[in-house]
């Protein structure tokens, strides 16, 4: 769990509820030995600067090429995107999409809704100053939509959501990410010593 800034606590609680061992990532060394990394919501400009300042911009792409799975929510999705409309800011650019930041408007336009998966299932979702995906690359698969817009997408082992599944009690998106990581949440024994408060 990338914990440089933002809403990482609710993600840690979700992983805890799934019984998956997790740890906070504050330094590049913390990436060793993990199967998946979540980039939380927060301020993408702030987190981007921290990624650059603490050496993550080089190390994360290397780890991905060695099989690290990534999951970005909201600001995390912006940091993963190849292009960010209107803004020139530090980002990883590993996911072939273009996003527009704060595309729904200021905070008073934030809302709760549900997103529809390809098979028709729905999952509750909280959108906060959320980005909108404006372009999808050919390798990018849309997993769920809201009002006709793609809001949950995947490219290989990189997953990105424009909303916040971690702010609801529904665990289906996190469960999906664990599958991408190759972990089995039912079998993995909870290692409470590695869980942060």
């Amino acid at each position: 769990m990338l914990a440089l800034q933002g809403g990482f606590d609710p993600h840690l609680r979700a992983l805890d509820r799934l019984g998956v061992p997790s740890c906070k990532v504050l330094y590049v060394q913390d990436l060793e030995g993990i199967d998946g990394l979540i980039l939380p919501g927060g301020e993408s400009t702030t987190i981007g600067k921290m990624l650059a300042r603490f050496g993550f911009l080089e190390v994360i792409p290397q780890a991905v090429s060695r099989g690290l799975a990534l999951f970005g929510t909201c600001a995390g999705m912006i940091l993963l995107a190849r292009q960010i409309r209107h803004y020139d800011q530090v980002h990883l650019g590993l996911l072939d999409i273009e996003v527009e930041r704060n595309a729904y408007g200021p905070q008073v336009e934030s809302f709760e809704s549900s997103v529809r998966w390809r098979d028709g299932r729905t999952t509750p979702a909280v959108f906060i100053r959320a980005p909108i995906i404006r372009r999808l690359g050919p390798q990018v698969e849309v997993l769920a939509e809201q009002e006709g817009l793609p809001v949950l997408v995947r490219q290989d082992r990189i997953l990105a959501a424009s909303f916040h599944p971690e702010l609801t009690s529904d665990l289906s998106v996190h469960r999906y990410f664990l599958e991408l990581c190759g972990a089995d949440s039912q079998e993995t024994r909870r290692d409470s010593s590695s869980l942060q408060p």
Partner: protein
Amino acid sequence: MSESLWSERQKSTWKTKVGLAEMLKGGVIMDVTNAQEAQIAEEAGAVAVMALERVPADIRSQGGVARMSDPAIIKAIQNAVSIPVMAKCRIGHFVEAQILEALGVDFIDESEVLTPADEFYHVDKHPFKVPFVCGCRDLGEALRRIGEGAAMIRTKGEAGTGNIVEAVRHMRTLMNDIRRIQSLPPEALMTAAKEMGAPYDLVVEVAKTGKLPVPNFSAGGVATPADAALMMQLGAETVFVGSGIFKSENPARLAKAIVEAVSHYKDPRILAEVSENLGAAMSGIDLRSLTENQRLALRGW
């Protein structure tokens, strides 16, 4: 957490309000008075800016009635940055709050730094779509504000002094209050609620969870990276820096240093590194030299 908790029963927008506060965690919110300062703050890595006409240190030295900022200043700052923009309304001044909501600010700070408009009541914050942050000095005050609808709490400290002592006092008091409530048997909670002047359901929730039902930030007196890290180690989840940055010798450098200090607040090596060569911090005020009238933290009921 069970469905019976007070915060689980709130209206749907409660999640988007508290959710934004969650996203600001581990960051620094900086007071700015114009577009240029806002850009410096964003460039340094601020998670949000507070749009003001005057920073608290100037409000303190110039005196007079301090009110909501000119909407033109707020708009100029909104246009200058992509991060959330907050603005302050006077305690109890719900019309200033309506105006700020109409301007599309992302958070309203019902703040003791401005001259209170109502000496009995705070704003009823539930009907607003925009989230509010309010100051507190102890748990009772925090829970009264949350009961009124605040989606974020900040300990008050003493704004515009560059002196961290009151921020520490308020954070320690809040944390001690929470620990005390947690140790009480259920039958003692109603009396504790009565003594603190806090809503009973919220006292029950804190006793059960050991934390406030909304994010808990710190404000009032932060002037250095070490001050910011101190507040984080004492339990703050994000730090507001008011006069500290733009009253210092090198605002851009200090702002960046405080952002890095908050991100790595438990790592003294990084704190040492970022604290180097920052130039002079704001000079600051000894709290003992202030009269009761000059203490902003005493405002709020």
